[in-house]
């Protein structure tokens, strides 16, 4: 497969996106003091498990939002031991921590806004499904320069399975 892939023409990366990724890699490799990514990741996992699981409330989610924000601040300075260019999984894990924080922030913001219960999103403070207000997909986006998460929505296309109450 490697030889097949090698023959395929690769699209050139978007210069802006490439510069931004290269910027985060060089700043991670240049940093010397800071926390280990694994420490912050473990705390992120704990708070997301405890506060943003299937059963959620406004209080739990608001706490998660604040906790994720403070973890993001701490993740601005990370310690990466491996400065090499060869299979650097230490660097990869540090980069991935940023992605995990993005996903966590988007998940918490979307869940906080959705004041209903639907499938795996069970709000104890809003136990009923609310099709009038919430039969829609959530999009979470962030302005490029580290802005806040903005939410937008898209209507659901109903095909074979009509939404109906779970009575089992």
């Amino acid at each position, binding site marked *: 497969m490697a030889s097949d892939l090698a023959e395929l023409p690769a699209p050139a990366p978007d210069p802006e996106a490439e510069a931004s990724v290269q910027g985060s890699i060089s700043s991670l490799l240049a940093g010397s003091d800071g926390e280990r990514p694994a420490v912050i990741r473990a705390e992120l996992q704990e708070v997301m498990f405890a506060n943003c699981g299937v059963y959620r409330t406004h209080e739990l989610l608001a706490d998660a939002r604040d906790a994720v924000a403070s973890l993001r601040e701490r993740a601005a300075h990370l310690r990466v*031991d491996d400065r090499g260019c060869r*299979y650097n*999984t*230490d660097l990869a894990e540090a980069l991935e921590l940023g992605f995990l924080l993005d996903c966590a922030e988007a998940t918490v913001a979307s869940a906080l806004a959705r004041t209903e219960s639907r499938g795996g999103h069970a709000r104890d403070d809003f136990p009923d499904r609310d099709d009038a207000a919430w039969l829609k997909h959530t999009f979470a986006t962030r302005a490029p320069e580290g802005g806040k998460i903005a939410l937008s929505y898209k209507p659901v296309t109903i095909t074979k399975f009509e939404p109906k109450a779970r009575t089992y």
Partner: protein
Amino acid sequence: MDVTLRIRRYNPELDDEPHWEEYAVEAEPTDRVLDLLHQVKWYQDGTLTFRRSCAHGVCGSDAMLINGRNRLACEYLVGDAGTDISVEAIRGMAVVKDLLVDMEPFWESYRSVKPYLVNDEVPADGKERRQTQAERERFEDTSRCILCAACTASCPVFWADQNYVGPAAIVNAHRFIVDSRDTATQERLEIMSDPDGVWRCRTVFNCVEACPRGIKITRAILEVTSEIGRAGIR
């Protein structure tokens, strides 16, 4: 319990030679060796490099030579491994870094046996190719391979000659050779009959001892040789 973990480290960017390093870690007997490697990587020395994906004995990414035997780090418990544990990369393949080897020659051998169902005919009923339970049973054992390379990297014939296709590739050839639905049996048997193929096996049984899935590899290899004989290939 306190465990001393000895790891054979090698980073070709920095080191002329591989060397051993020792790490003190605290562990429960129910922890896996992979947990200890994580402890080192995450909290002691981020430069330690190894592969792992599912971490539950299915993906086959973390085969390593642990206490002298090839095993999956995610399946080997500290309670069984003891308080002095040595870990090094599997043998016979070039070390990329620390416990991580270049698997490409292994994949090349794997690909060479056409490890996929070959059958261009339309099934009799137009829908599916039926098998009896006995026909299915013939490749039950070899279909359980997870391609971790523990077998091939434990084989002294492979250590001596990396052109040998190796037990893992033969296991995967067997899986299709004995499959009643497959139509490329003859072609695969000819591949297996190559000088670098199945005849290089010296029935050392290292592969069987190393296999984390308990596949009877030597039996599969001998079944392939008898299929070659039956097919009259010389």
